[in-house]
């Protein structure tokens, strides 16, 4: 069939860096384990299977550096295997407990089988699932993007932090995936004029913004269905509002269908505490992933989950999605010279975690758009640029994909206190990086660790959690812990009394980015490499 336009699926995989070697189990590490089981492994399973079938699909997958760091971390890999074993054991117990129950026994079996399959897949790749993604990128099925190093909300960070955040991310991506990323997921799709210059310097050519950014573009409203070239070989792509609504809208979106699995009914809460306690990470009740009910309706009454019914809905929803894209593209292609591109960026964790059938839905979409029977073809921003250029010239203003398109989620009375501390620390980091242009030994170690602590404190997740009111204590503790460690380390550098034991402890606890180079904070880094750094320098002295 003649292709009239394109659909680009962009998934953003991200979790905050949560790793607690100080305890054998830690509740918040389960965010990562659950996402592996429910999202990343099902995606990988699907993508590898479709490739083996010879389906010519393509999509963009942004892997945030904290997620990539956790996926390649031996401690977390080991803990994940133990977690899987525990959950498989729970699955076996559930099969026994539900034996003879026509509704629940098949579900218990389904969960246990899935867990065993994903455990096998995980081990088949040597617990390095990033290697599978690397392979899929090499075969042309995935375009892998990065994000900022610790998912910092860049418009609220001082500009001196932009380069370290972006360069560290690019370096880590190259190391893990063996290829430089073509694009970047700006955390929270938060753009601020000037960021594109840094992206250009780091070889990044595209990113995504909310559609509102295009509507407020200069010199005129930009077309949502082609990229906008901001200069320096960097183009922005706009999120398509229609496909966002179809998936995200809590009332009309697909995931709310009554036949899909109910997220909020889990045996971790429904069954006697003593029975589930051995499978929890802490003393409190929590999700186990064993959920036996479908959404059923808007009330509290829930009926047993029927996987066949859900699969049927997946088929009708993916048919509906494809139909709508074909109609949308048919309309758009009459309005513009180049083939229209409908770009749908989603948080990857929506699919599988919140929307259990999400990976199945995405598989159905890939099949429908890659089978050669649709007037809409799959593409990626990279491929679109290569085939159709970087788009017309234009400018964008500050924008995000948060509420109302700006920053109120990340600065409001619940979290505004963090910024004075973050900004002060950023300045101190710059001052020290410029004072020690070629540090060696423990000073270098200390400066690198200070940079790690600062970056971890900058994660947009902490402000987000404080705003949403979920695990606020954890987000607060993490923000403070990183900042306090930062000041402890930087003070020791200034005082010439680096405590190697304390430094080693910080490195052991927060080992993200082993190759991080603090000199990225030096605004004249390149020049300084060959400068006479033994001359007196201007050093900022911070008094606390």
């Amino acid at each position, binding site marked *: 069939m003649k292709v009239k336009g394109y659909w680009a699926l962009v998934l953003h995989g991200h979790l905050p860096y949560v790793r607690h070697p100080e305890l054998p189990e830690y509740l918040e590490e389960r965010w990562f384990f659950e996402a592996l089981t429910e999202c990343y492994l099902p995606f990988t399973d699907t993508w590898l299977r479709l490739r083996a079938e010879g389906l010519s699909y393509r999509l963009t997958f942004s892997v945030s550096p904290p997620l990539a760091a956790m996926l390649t971390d031996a401690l977390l890999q080991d803990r994940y295997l133990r977690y899987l074993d525990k959950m498989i054991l729970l699955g076996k117990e559930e099969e026994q407990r539900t034996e003879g129950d026509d509704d629940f026994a098949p579900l218990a079996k389904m969960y246990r089988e899935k867990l065993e399959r994903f455990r096998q897949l995980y081990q088949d790749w040597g617990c390095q699932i990033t290697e599978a993604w690397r392979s899929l990128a090499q075969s042309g099925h995935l375009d892998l993007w990065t994000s900022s190093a610790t998912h910092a909300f860049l418009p609220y960070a001082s500009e001196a932090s932009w380069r370290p955040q972006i360069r560290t991310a690019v370096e880590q991506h190259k190391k893990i995936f063996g290829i430089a990323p073509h694009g970047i997921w700006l955390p929270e799709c938060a753009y601020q004029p000037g960021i594109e210059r840094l992206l250009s310097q780091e070889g990044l050519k595209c990113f995504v913004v909310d559609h509102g950014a295009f509507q407020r573009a200069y010199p005129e409203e930009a077309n949502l269905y082609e990229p906008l070239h901001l200069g320096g070989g960097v183009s922005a792509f706009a999120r398509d509002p229609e496909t966002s609504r179809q998936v995200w809208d809590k009332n009309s979106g697909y995931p709310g269908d009554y036949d899909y699995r109910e997220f909020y009914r889990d045996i971790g809460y429904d069954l006697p505490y003593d029975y589930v306690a051995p499978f929890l990470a802490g003393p409190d009740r929590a999700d186990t992933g064993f959920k036996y009910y479908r959404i059923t309706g808007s009330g509290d009454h829930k009926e047993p989950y029927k996987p066949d019914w859900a699969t049927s809905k997946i088929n009708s929803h993916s048919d509906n999605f494809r139909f709508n894209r074909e109609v949308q593209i048919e309309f758009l292609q009459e309005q513009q010279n180049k083939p229209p591109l409908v770009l749908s960026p989603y948080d990857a964790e929506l699919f599988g975690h919140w929307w259990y059938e999400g990976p199945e839905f995405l598989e159905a979409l890939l099949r429908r758009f890659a089978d050669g029977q649709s007037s809409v073809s799959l593409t990626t921003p990279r491929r679109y640029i290569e085939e159709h250029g970087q788009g017309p010239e234009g400018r964008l*203003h500050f924008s995000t994909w948060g509420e109302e398109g700006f920053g109120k989620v990340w600065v409001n009375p619940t979290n505004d206190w963090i910024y004075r501390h973050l900004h002060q620390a950023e300045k101190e980091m710059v001052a020290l990086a410029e004072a020690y242009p070629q540090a*060696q030994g423990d000073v270098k170690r200390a400066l690198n660790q200070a940079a790690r602590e600062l970056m971890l404190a900058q994660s947009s997740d902490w402000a987000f959690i404080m705003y949403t009111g979920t695990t606020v204590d954890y987000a607060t503790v993490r923000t403070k812990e990183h900042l306090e460690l930062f000041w402890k380390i930087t003070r020791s550098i200034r005082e010439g009394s680096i405590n190697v034991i304390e430094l080693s402890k910080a490195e052991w606890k927060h080992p993200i980015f082993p190759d991080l180079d603090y000199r990225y904070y030096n605004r004249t880094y390149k020049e300084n490499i060959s400068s006479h*750094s033994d001359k007196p320098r201007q050093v900022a002295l911070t008094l606390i």
Partner: protein
Amino acid sequence: MGGLPRSYGQDCLGVLVQDLFHIYVYWELTEETRQKALSLRNLNVDSPCQIRVQQFVEENDSMEWQKVYQAELPFGADHWYLSGLVPAMIYRIQIGIQDGESFQELLTSEQVHMPPGISGHRRSWGRAHSIVGGVAPIEVTVPVEESTESYSSSDLVAEPAVAERSASYFEG
């Protein structure tokens, strides 16, 4: 953990644009700076600080900052939310002291650009944040670097220039 400080003992001012109409401002004004300003103008030590918002205005080939808002700050205030700002306008924020008709600014932000509500606004391309003050550079002797060589012998072998530099620090 010792906890984060309430203040850093340094004058600073941060401005973050929240949305089309709102700005978040935080600051630290040291007592030293405040007292110095009061003393210079012979003002009462209890004189309150004020926050002033100025808008950049271009009219008939002239450009100037015009005051659009000013308020007295309660004692101890260190942050403020400003509302009612205009999309696509350029603002700057000041913390200072009112002395009769005169406003003595003590902290001034760089210009902050509000995003526009509609397309076509060229002048709001700029930053939606301003962070000024804070860590202030002073000249000091770097005391640490020379002691590092004892932990980095491999680096010294690999990079003679560093060894020479480090040695000179020891001698100094």
